[in-house]
């Protein structure tokens, strides 16, 4: 009882100093959490945009396809392969695709496009393609029409009901040419995707490209996004690794990963500086406290208190001080973080434009997960533990006579 009681009461001996020190911890952790939540929230949105716009969490390709994305590097989708993928644990859905490059033309306009043969339902399950519809109707499983992205439609000056001409090269050099009524127009946040995508139903695409039963990729959605790498490994184990390769979105888009890592590192440096300042603040408080109470420490040891017990009092006191700041900081950070998680800040002006240009939604959400709350609290706690080293060493070296003369 004595240790906790003395520590608690000592904390309030100099109320103003305690409150100022606790407030510095409070603001540090509050700013750190808010800053980190927006940072992580933006990354989460970025990843979601990438994963749910197009790539999925991971993809299965024929070996070598990713390095040379041509139809000839596609693979034949067998029933056995489908069955294996269906029963893999953690897979929430997958979208088979047959993808190639071709020329799309309407009237006097022609443009190089990505022709994507998809299973409309499966594709919708992975990328919510139907939600991206701006006008017209979504594709049916064996639809003979096409969906085209909004910027492309604008460029070609084509609308719903018009007929799109596609000319390209099919499997093994066969000529691929066809005409497809435009069923609808979809809009992608990424200008890059939005200016070059044409969707056909899978049977129609196979027919166009003379690629019977073929696919170029299968994109996967997972039940638990945190475990997509494990699911990817499971899927990989079901496949003949001589023929297939499984690539996560990170492997397919290393530049995005690099961008996130670099941004995250700069954020962490900022936090490091913030924490260093707080660390020195607490250090200063400890120093003042030690100088003020030297005589008292000497007296306590003189009357029979072991140094270890005295250290425990000071450690408890510092922990109380730190926890006061940490707990109140975390509590105060929860409401705004949760609010902006539910209602992300919409970006406007140049910032919104540049975000859209990069292919992401112009939003600034926060991340709502316990991991960074715990991580930031632990970092502050570790700083406090490091600062505690000073009083512990002082008490260890303390001699009663000198301390009581203080």
């Amino acid at each position: 009882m004595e240790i906790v009681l003395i520590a608690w009461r000592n904390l309030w001996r100099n109320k103003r100093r305690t409150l100022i020190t606790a407030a510095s911890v409070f603001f540090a952790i509050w700013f750190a959490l808010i800053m980190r939540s927006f940072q992580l929230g933006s990354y989460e949105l970025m990843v979601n945009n990438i994963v749910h716009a197009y790539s999925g969490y991971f993809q299965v390709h024929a070996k070598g396809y990713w390095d040379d994305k041509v139809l000839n590097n596609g693979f034949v989708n067998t029933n056995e392969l489908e069955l294996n993928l269906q029963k893999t644990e953690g897979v929430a859905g997958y979208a088979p695709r047959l993808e190639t490059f071709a020329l799309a033309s309407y009237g006097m306009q022609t443009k190089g496009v990505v022709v994507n043969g998809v299973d409309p339902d499966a594709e919708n399950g992975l990328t919510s393609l139907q939600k991206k519809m701006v006008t017209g109707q979504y594709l049916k499983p064996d639809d003979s029409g096409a969906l085209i992205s909004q910027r492309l439609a604008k460029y070609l000056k084509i609308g719903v009901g018009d007929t799109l001409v596609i000319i390209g090269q099919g499997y093994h050099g066969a000529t691929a040419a066809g005409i497809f009524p435009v069923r609808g127009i979809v809009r992608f946040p990424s200008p890059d995707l939005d200016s070059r995508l044409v969707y056909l139903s899978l049977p129609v695409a196979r027919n166009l490209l003379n690629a019977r039963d073929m696919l170029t990729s299968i994109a996967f959605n997972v039940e638990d996004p945190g475990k997509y790498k494990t699911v990817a490994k499971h899927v990989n184990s079901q496949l003949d690794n001589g023929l297939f390769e499984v690539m996560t979105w990170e492997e397919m888009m290393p530049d995005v990963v690099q961008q996130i890592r670099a941004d995250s590192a700069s954020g962490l440096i900022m936090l490091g500086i913030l924490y260093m300042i707080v660390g020195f603040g607490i250090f200063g408080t400890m120093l003042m406290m030690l100088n003020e109470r030297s005589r008292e420490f000497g007296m306590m040891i003189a009357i029979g208190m072991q140094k270890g017990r005295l250290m425990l009092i000071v450690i408890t006191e510092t922990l109380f001080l730190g926890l006061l700041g940490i707990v109140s900081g975390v509590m105060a950070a929860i409401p705004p973080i949760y609010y902006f998680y539910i209602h992300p800040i919409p970006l406007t002006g140049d910032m919104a434009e540049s975000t859209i240009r990069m292919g992401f939604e112009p939003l600034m959400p926060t991340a709502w997960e316990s991991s960074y709350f715990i991580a930031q609290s632990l970092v502050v706690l570790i700083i406090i533990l490091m600062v505690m080293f000073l009083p512990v060493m002082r008490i260890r070296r303390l001699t009663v006579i000198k301390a009581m003369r203080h």
Partner: protein
Amino acid sequence: MSIIAIENLKKSYRDSEVEVHALNDINIAFDQGEFTAIVGPSGSGKTTLLNMIGGLDKPDNGRILIGGEDITKLSSRKLIDFRMHHIGFVFQSYNLIPVLTALENVEFIMHLQGIKREKRLSRATELLEAVGLGDRIHSRPSKLSGGQQQRVAVARALASRPRFILADEPTANLDSASTRNLLEIMEKLNQEEQVTFIFSTHDQRVVDKAHRVIVLEDGKVVKDEYQN
């Protein structure tokens, strides 16, 4: 048999370039129930001697036997334990724990000794009543006068049932009334409960009450006599 026996005690310090012999071959013994004043001019070695007897400092030479045990040979850890169980301290400037009430200050040392709460509370209350502070047991030191704080310090020193109490100039910061009051309490404890007190003091009023007066000069005992 003596409860404290000091044999050939020597202690010197370096003050700048000069070596100061704070204690120079001291040989004294104290019996149970003594009420002793150690007097002498500033720098005569009173406080150093008290620190040695209390195990707060180590001598360069000699032995201090308390109940037959040479405390100069004890490790720092054992010495702290020894002090807790066998020696009571009253310091010049009270030195109470400021965040604890009078009762908690007295109880504190018993808590260190591992005595159960009920026993602690009853003894602490009893001791505070004995020093005339039965009505101030829940007051913190800052709410007590100097004399009252020093009485709490006496109660705290007695709480662990020590073999003796060392008091370093206990009346130095007190006014006449508080000094008189404190001396009466200590005298009463000495007479009624055979508590051994050893003081260092400059205060003639304390010397007058002492049964034995030891005079130190330049670290040597120059006079050691009993008085009525």
